[in-house]
C-alpha cells in the first residue's frame, strides 16, 4: 500500500482506460446488434450501415481527441457517434425518427449530428464530408483555435475527385485535419483492387506531402497510439496527417446487401481478429478482466440499450406542422 503509489495509480488508470475502450467497443457492437433486430421489427427504417468489426477504429481515434475537437463522419457512423459521446438515447431516438433524436428525427441512421460534442455529421454522399473537414480546419486556423478535425471516410471514397482536391488543399495550406481512412477493403461490393490502381492508400496520401501511416485497425490500442501521435503532430502545427486504418466489416454493406461478393473464408479469417475479442483476451491475460466483470459490463450495456429503446419508443414525434422548420434559420443576424 505504501510502495510506489504513483506507479500503482498510473497502472490503474491505464487499466481503466483500456476497460473504457472495451466498454465503448462493446457498446457500439451491442447497440448495432439491437439495431438489426429493430430493423427487422421495422422500428428503424431507411438505409442502415453497420460498423460491426470496425469498432476499434472509431474507438481508438476518438480516444485521442479532446473535447473541443471536431468530427466529420459518414453514413456508417453509429460507432463514431457513440464513441464521441453522443448520448445513446439521442442516437436511438434518431433512428426511430423521433423528436428527441440527435437530428430531431430528420436525419436517421445516416445523418447523426450533435453540436454539443462537435459531431458535424453523418454524410451519405461518399467523400462529401472531406471538403467540410478541410473547411472546419481552415476556420480553426484562421481563428487561431487549437482544434483538430478528424474526418472519417472509406477506401471507396479515396477514388472520388473530392478526396484528391481536399488532400491537396489541406496539405497546401497545412491545415489541422486528421484524415482517417477506414480501409475495409470494399466499397459496397467492389473490392479495393477494382477501385484503385494502387491500393496502398497511405502511400496515396503521402503523394500529397501528407505524413501518413497504415495502422492495424483491428487493434484499438495501436489505433489510439497512432492517432495520439498524429494529433500531437497536427497540434504542433505540422499540417494534416493521414491514417489508413486497416479493418473489415463483418456484416454486409447495408441491410439490403446479400454479400455475394466476398467469400466465407475471407470473412471468417477476419472475424478471428475481432477487435473486441482481442482486447478481452489481452485484458484477461493481464488479469484485468474477470468473467464476472465482463458479464457486468455486458449487462450494463444491455440495460442502457433497453432504456434507450424504451425512451425512443415513448418519445414524441416532431409535429407535422414543423416539416418546413429548419429549411431556413429562424433568426437573422442583427
Amino acid at each position, binding site marked *: 500500500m505504501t510502495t510506489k503509489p504513483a506507479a500503482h495509480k498510473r497502472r490503474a488508470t491505464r487499466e481503466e482506460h483500456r476497460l473504457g475502450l472495451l466498454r465503448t467497443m462493446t457498446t457500439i457492437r451491442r447497440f448495432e446488434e439491437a439495431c438489426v433486430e429493430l430493423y427487422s421489427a421495422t422500428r428503424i*427504417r*431507411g*438505409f442502415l450501415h453497420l460498423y460491426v468489426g470496425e469498432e476499434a477504429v472509431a474507438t481508438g481515434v476518438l480516444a485521442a481527441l479532446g473535447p473541443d475537437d471536431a468530427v466529420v463522419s459518414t453514413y456508417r457512423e453509429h460507432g463514431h457517434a457513440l464513441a464521441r459521446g453522443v448520448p445513446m438515447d439521442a442516437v436511438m431516438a*434518431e433512428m426511430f*425518427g*423521433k423528436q428527441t433524436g440527435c*437530428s430531431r*428525427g*430528420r*436525419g*436517421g441512421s*445516416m*445523418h447523426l449530428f450533435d453540436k454539443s460534442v462537435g459531431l458535424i455529421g453523418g*454524410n*451519405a*454522399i*461518399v*467523400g*462529401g464530408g472531406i471538403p467540410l473537414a478541410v473547411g472546419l480546419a481552415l476556420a480553426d486556423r484562421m481563428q487561431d483555435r487549437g482544434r483538430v478535425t478528424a474526418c472519417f471516410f472509406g477506401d*471507396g*471514397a479515396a*477514388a*472520388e*475527385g473530392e478526396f484528391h482536391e481536399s488532400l491537396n488543399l489541406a496539405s497546401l495550406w497545412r491545415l489541422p485535419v486528421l484524415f482517417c481512412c477506414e480501409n475495409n477493403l470494399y*466499397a*459496397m*461490393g*467492389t*473490392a479495393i483492387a*477494382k*477501385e*484503385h490502381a494502387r491500393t496502398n492508400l497511405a502511400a496515396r496520401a503521402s503523394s500529397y506531402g501528407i505524413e501518413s501511416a497504415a495502422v492495424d485497425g483491428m487493434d484499438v490500442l495501436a489505433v489510439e497510439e497512432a492517432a495520439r501521435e498524429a494529433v500531437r503532430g497536427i497540434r504542433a502545427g505540422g499540417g494534416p496527417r493521414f491514417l489508413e486504418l486497416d479493418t473489415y466489416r463483418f456484416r454486409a454493406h447495408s441491410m*439490403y*446487401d446479400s454479400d*455475394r*461478393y466476398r467469400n466465407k473464408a475471407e470473412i471468417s479469417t477476419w472475424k478471428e481478429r475481432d477487435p473486441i475479442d482481442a482486447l478481452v483476451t489481452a485484458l484477461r491475460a493481464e488479469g484485468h478482466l474477470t468473467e464476472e466483470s465482463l458479464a457486468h459490463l455486458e449487462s450494463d450495456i444491455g440495460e442502457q440499450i433497453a432504456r434507450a429503446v424504451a425512451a425512443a419508443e415513448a418519445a414524441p*414525434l*416532431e409535429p*407535422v406542422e414543423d*416539416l*418546413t422548420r429548419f*429549411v431556413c434559420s429562424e433568426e437573422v443576424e442583427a
Partner: protein
Amino acid sequence: MSETLETTYRDALRDAIREAMRADDRVFLMGEDVGDYGGCFAVSLGLLEEFGPERVRDTPLSESAFVGADIGAAIGGMRPIVEIMTVNFSLLALDQIMNNAASLLHMSGGQFNVPLVIRMTTGAGRQLAAQHSHSLEGWYAHIPGLRVVTPATLEDARGMLATALRDPDPVLMFEHGSLYPMKGTLATDAGAVDIDHAAVRRPGTDVSLITYGGSLGKALAAAALLDQDGVSADVIDLRTLRPLDDTAIVESVRRTHHAVIVDEGWRSGGISAEISARIMEEALYDLDAPVERVCTAEVPLPYAKHLEEAALPQPPGIAAAALRTLG
C-alpha cells in the same frame, strides 16, 4: 393474343438490358457495383455471369470520370449504358452531362453525337433522408440536348431502353426506387416502345391528372378516390419529360377543362411549373379554373416516416386539389 409472363419492374429492366447486350456488341453496362454486387437495386443481377467483366464493368466511386468516360466511349463507337446508382450522386457528374454529353453535338457543328443512355434511380418514399431522396428528373429536363424518360409501367421498364439505345443522342432514364418490386404481367414478346408520346393511363372527363414515374400510382389512386365522389379523372403519364408531349397535355385539358399536375419534384421551378406554363400558353381559354400543382414540400427530405409522408404528394391531397379545381 401473345403469351404473357409474370414479372417485376426490376426484372423487366434487366431483361431489357440483357436483350440489348445480346443484340449489339457495342452495348455494355458500366457503373458502381453493377457487376460483382449485382447492382445496388439488383437490376443487373446475373448479367456479369452472362457477359463478363468487360461488358458489365464495375467502376470505382468516381461519377464524373466514369460518366465522362462513357461519353467518350459513345463517341468512340460504343453504345454504353451507364448506371449512376441514384440521382443524388449524379450531381457529381453534372458537369459531364451538361457540358459534354448535352453540348458536344452542337458545339462541334454536328460532328460528334453522343449515343449514351444514363440510368439512375430517383425519388423518395423509403425514408432515405435528404441526400438520398431527390427527384431531379424534371430538373434535368431543363437541359437542351438531352432526352429524359421516366418509365412508370412494366411495359415501359421493358421497352424504353431499346428505344433509348437507338437514339443517337444522350438519354437519361429515371427509375423510381419504389417501383422496382412492382409486379405484373407482360407479353413475352414485349420490346421497344415509342418514347415520343405521353399515354392516357385512365381516361376521364372531369379533371386531368398529369403525372409520370413514381407518382403515376398515386395519381391513379387519387382517381379512384375521385371516382367515389363521382368525379372522372383523366390520368396522363407523361413518360418523357424532355421533350414534353404538349399535344397530349393540351388534348386532355381540352377534354376536362381542369388540371392537376402531380410531381414528386420540389414545387418551385420543377417540371410542374413548365407544364402549368405550357397550359397557360397553349390552352388558357380551355381552362375553367387555375391549374393546380401537387408537389413535394420544399424541404430537404426528412427521415422520419410521418414527416416524409407529409412532404410527398399523396392520393388524398391529389384528390383534394382536383376537387378544388372543380370548385
